[in-house]
């Protein structure tokens, strides 16, 4: 909402400057988005009176004018058709600068010197009107600066009106707020209509058939109007408010809407069949072409204004072409009505029309203000279009909308706000806003809510009014009494933080990727839907196909982030993400949203250094990170099991098992996937469900005795077939080693010349100790021999 302070000052005395006023409005809930200074950007443009206008000797279209520019008469050549002796018009003197940057000089036009230029509105930058020169109203003095003559200097406040305050969508409503905030008197426009001719009643009939959608319809008749442009001051105000001036009759309807908030419509009376207005829902046979030239298909839910022959307007949204006011219009039927907000909203949506009228009706127009607005507009048509206002209005009331009565408990209201509120103060605030407020008991106030405030329906609405007028800034800041309340993160919340912290410590960067993925990703990762769910959650209205699916896995987003970096020549990328995935559940409206952890690493894990060779990130880098995580968080009962996944390199991938259940995967991406995504095949990824992971966390690790007696250390190097996994070897070692074997650590893996083809050697460091005595070397050697025997028997291993 754009509010001209010049205009606003008609309704309330403004003693504050624009900035102070802006602050006051903002602090009371009418946010001021900006304060705009409006000034005529004209330098050297003055008011001139054309004294003589004669044809140019050598050009038909040009006129030679003698123009009085204030104590001096100049010869000016003009090409506009509307120039005539006697008019007042803006004159650019040589040296003047126009808003578009043009500088006016003396010029010779077809042999005649022009000492200045008569200007059109377009040249002045005030409208698109370029047809003729701008004609100024009488009252301005010759030689007067144009800015001064047009009272062009103004300040506009751009207000953000919240949807609950339709009453502030007009000058009078804003003025009411300002009056309440500054303690000034509100001045409603006063005027008197000189009614003449036969009463309107005889020529106009109004029938409301659907009273649920139209509570009231006021029609006035104005005869003998002459259509023409509105005066400058009105056009200026309309433009300042963002409304395009059309002609005096239409402009008046818009002007009164901006002034009082009541949308109005003017029909050409002679085009209305039978002078009959019928307000009803559309029927299947109805058709209407609206003012914008669009033929509208109508729904039975649309409310129409009809005459005896059919629809003439989409009620409250847009008028029809068939009854539009045109330059030939002489008799106007003026409509001022109240329509149901929800119905107007549906119609405006259905037809995708957002008009100034529908915007206001949707939010709620004062049902009690129809008559006053009709009178105001009739008066202005009488003044500006020379119309004769017919006596009386045709006022059809389908439903009387009475002011609401509410009770407010002052004590409770004060406690809710947190202030000591007196009844006197509460009454004062409510009255300043135009409400009737009377104390009815020691605590209670009875409030009559005026019909222009449809947002005030409950006691709490009144509390809000009191709070905002009292001033939020004056409310003392306190804290709730939360002494009995202990704030704490849950175990899972703390563990999640710990999880992230360990991964960050290990050298991964946390990524947050968007939850939507392209549907094509699913095919890339898992064409047959072996692992990703076959049913995914799709958006009904995605922004694009590229963001149409709620991710069933964190992998696509993470690989996309990987690629984003690779494309920017960042080749070593180590990422993790903690986020939810979305898995539809049979028979449930809402999907499961398990929290997942995923990691993706590629490039070098350790870069080349001045004394070290680089280390590529691979499966074992990621496995090491997982082991670190499991160890730091005390994850128990986990294992890796060989498994294939469609998006992972078949023999370089595994399932992550937690307490016997598959909870995720780890592996190198499948070369096919890598190629498709244009990422290196040397990319290791893992993804795991966080809930089972945290369930496997031992919250309070158990005390294990620290050995007091020395340990015996022995090495063991065995040769096994290449197909034997190190894990199997270690399992046999541990089993055969029994409880005195405390640690088993693989420190060497060898394949090559010293061995046969298809063999490998594994070397372990073994640590033995007892908790109750010093272990003798012979005891350890006995166990060692048992281990060797067992390995030979079960895995065909031999000592190296």
């Amino acid at each position, binding site marked *: 909402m754009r509010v001209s302070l010049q205009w606003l000052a008609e309704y309330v005395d403004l003693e504050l400057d624009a900035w102070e006023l802006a602050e006051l409005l903002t602090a009371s809930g009418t946010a001021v988005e900006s304060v705009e200074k409006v000034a005529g950007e004209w330098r050297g443009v003055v008011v001139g009176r054309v004294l003589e206008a004669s044809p140019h000797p050598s050009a038909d279209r040009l006129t030679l004018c003698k123009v009085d520019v204030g104590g001096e008469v100049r010869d000016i050549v003009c090409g506009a058709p509307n120039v005539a002796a006697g008019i007042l018009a803006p004159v650019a003197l040589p040296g003047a600068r126009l808003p578009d940057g043009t500088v006016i000089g003396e010029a010779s036009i077809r042999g005649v010197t022009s000492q200045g230029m008569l200007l059109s509105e377009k040249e002045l930058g005030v409208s698109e009107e370029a047809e003729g020169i701008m004609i100024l109203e009488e009252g301005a003095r010759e030689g007067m600066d144009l800015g001064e003559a047009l009272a062009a200097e103004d300040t506009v406040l751009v207000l953000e009106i919240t949807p609950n305050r339709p009453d502030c969508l007009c000058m009078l409503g804003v003025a009411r707020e300002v009056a309440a905030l500054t303690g000034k008197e509100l001045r409603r426009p006063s005027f008197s209509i000189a009614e003449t001719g036969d009463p309107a009643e005889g020529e106009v009939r109004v029938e409301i058939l659907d009273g649920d959608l139209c509570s009231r319809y006021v029609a006035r008749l104005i005869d003998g109007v002459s259509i023409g442009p509105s005066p400058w001051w009105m056009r200026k105000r309309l433009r300042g408010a963002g409304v395009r001036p059309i002609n005096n009759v239409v402009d008046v309807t818009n002007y009164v809407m901006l002034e009082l908030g009541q949308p109005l419509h003017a029909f050409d009376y002679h085009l209305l069949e039978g002078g009959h207005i019928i307000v009803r829902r559309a029927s299947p046979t109805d058709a209407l072409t609206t003012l914008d030239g669009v033929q509208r298909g109508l729904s039975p839910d649309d409310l129409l204004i009809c005459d005896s022959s059919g629809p003439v307007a989409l009620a409250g949204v847009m008028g029809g072409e068939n009854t539009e006011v045109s330059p030939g219009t002489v008799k106007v039927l003026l409509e001022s009505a109240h329509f149901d907000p929800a119905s107007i909203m549906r119609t405006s949506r259905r037809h995708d029309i957002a008009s100034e009228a529908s915007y206001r009706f949707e939010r709620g127009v004062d049902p009690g203000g129809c008559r006053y607005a009709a009178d105001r507009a009739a008066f202005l048509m009488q003044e500006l279009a020379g119309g004769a206002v017919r006596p009386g209005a045709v006022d059809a009331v389908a439903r009387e909308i009475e002011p609401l009565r509410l009770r407010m408990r002052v004590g409770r209201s004060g406690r809710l706000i947190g202030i000591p509120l007196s009844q006197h103060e509460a009454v004062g605030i409510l009255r300043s806003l135009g409400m009737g407020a009377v104390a009815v008991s020691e605590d209670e106030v009875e409030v009559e809510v005026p019909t222009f405030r449809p947002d005030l329906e409950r006691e709490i609405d009144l509390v809000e009014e009191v709070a905002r007028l009292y001033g939020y800034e004056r409310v003392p800041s306190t*804290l709730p009494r939360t002494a009995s309340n202990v704030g704490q993160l849950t175990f899972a919340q703390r563990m999640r933080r710990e999880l992230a912290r360990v991964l960050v410590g290990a*050298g991964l960067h946390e*990524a947050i*990727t968007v939850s939507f993925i392209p549907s094509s990703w699913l095919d890339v990762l898992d064409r047959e839907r072996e692992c990703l769910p076959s049913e995914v959650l799709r*958006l009904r209205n995605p922004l694009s196909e590229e963001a149409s699916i709620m991710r069933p896995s964190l992998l696509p987003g993470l690989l996309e982030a990987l690629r984003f970096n690779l494309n920017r020549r960042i080749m070593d990328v180590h990422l993790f993400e903690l986020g939810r995935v979305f898995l539809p559940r049979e028979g449930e409206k809402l999907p499961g949203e398990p929290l997942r952890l995923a990691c993706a690493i590629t490039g070098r894990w350790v870069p080349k*250094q001045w004394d070290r060779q680089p280390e590529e990130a691979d499966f074992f880098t990621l496995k090491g990170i997982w082991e670190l995580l499991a160890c730091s968080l005390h994850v128990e009962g986990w294992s890796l099991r060989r498994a294939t996944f469609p998006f992972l390199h078949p023999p370089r991938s595994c399932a992550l098992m937690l307490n016997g259940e598959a909870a995720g995967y780890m592996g190198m991406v499948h070369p096919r996937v890598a190629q498709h995504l244009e990422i290196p095949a040397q990319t290791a990824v893992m993804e795991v469900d966080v809930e089972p992971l945290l369930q496997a966390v031992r919250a309070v690790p158990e005390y294990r005795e620290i050995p007091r007696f020395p340990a015996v250390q022995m090495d063991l190097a065995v040769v096994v077939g290449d197909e034997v996994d190190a894990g199997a070897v270690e399992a046999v070692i541990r089993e055969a080693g029994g409880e005195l074997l405390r640690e088993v650590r693989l420190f060497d893996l060898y394949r090559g010349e010293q061995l046969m083809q298809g063999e490998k050697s594994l070397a372990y460091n073994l640590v033995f100790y007892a908790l109750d005595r010093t272990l003798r070397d012979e005891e350890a050697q006995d166990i060692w021999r048992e281990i060797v025997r067992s390995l030979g028997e079960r895995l065909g291993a031999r000592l190296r």
Partner: protein
Amino acid sequence: MQGMIPEDVAKEMEGDPRLSALLADLQEALRSAEDMDSLERVRVAFLGRKGKITSLLQGIRELPAEERRRLGRLGNALKGHLEEELGRRRERLLVEELEESLHRERIDITLPGRHVNFGTRHLLSRIIEEIEDIFVGMGYRVVEGPEVELDYYNFEALNTPDWHPSKSLQDTFYVEVPGGDYEDVLLRTHTSPVQVRVMESTPPPLYVIAPGKAYRHDVPDATHSPMFHQVEGLAVDEGISLGDLKGTLEVFARKMFGEDRRVRFRPHFFPFTEPSAEVDVSCNICGGGGCRVCKGTGWLEILGAGMVDPNVFSYVGYDAEKYSGFAFGMGVERIALLKYGVPDIRFFFDNDLRLLRQY
């Protein structure tokens, strides 16, 4: 030799021709003894089996008793003093030698340190944790709710009428439920539905915050992202007032943005709170004088808040006569933009390591 032998003893020795000659020899020998080998030679020459002091002491046996005692005393004193001196010199030489050998082990401390991988938390996660910690410190619990929500929780129970513009396909993402034809399943447009879920399942008093993702049908640009993060807050208790809301958010804003920041509350409108407020902190870039970031106002809007609307209480079965409460919601990305100067909201979801590594 100076200082090796006490002055009186030295004087006594000077008086004896044998001793004075011995003393002179010793002084001469020690003068050039600058390394271990020459020290050893001095030792052998004077204290060895055939050394000069040893011989002197052996030779006194034939002397008369008094003379023997005197020479024995002086000889032994000289022996003791020489041994001490040799020890001192050896020790000094060892220290010098060690110092010299350490000097050869000099390293170039300006070479880069050995690489250790470096990881970072995402800026948004850090901000969420910071917010959580502030409120946990004030007695709040952290709760969560689903990102795919029902219209009921996202709009209806939050007092948002059916015709509200934010429910349109242009503003809200709707979800297709496989095997079902529902129109009320959507991506939550704010974290506020968690309020309703928590109140449904927990009786008052209640002090919770709910961080999480939310979604709006916005084409990404510098200030809009279809996915973003919010932190919702809710306090319900007996006697909670608008003043309590002010106090709580002032504490929060100062802890989050700095103790010197001013906080401003402006009345506003939200469907599910009344009275409602928008909360601004003074602009840290211009200090309140007005700049581009604060659009000349000197204030930065950081959150929306208000007293829980009694209608919302009636949806969850709370007694609005007995209890009152406040709720607030803040955009995490906005806080990051303001606090860390990140110029574009899309940067948060690119996961560009050059950005991630900065925080």
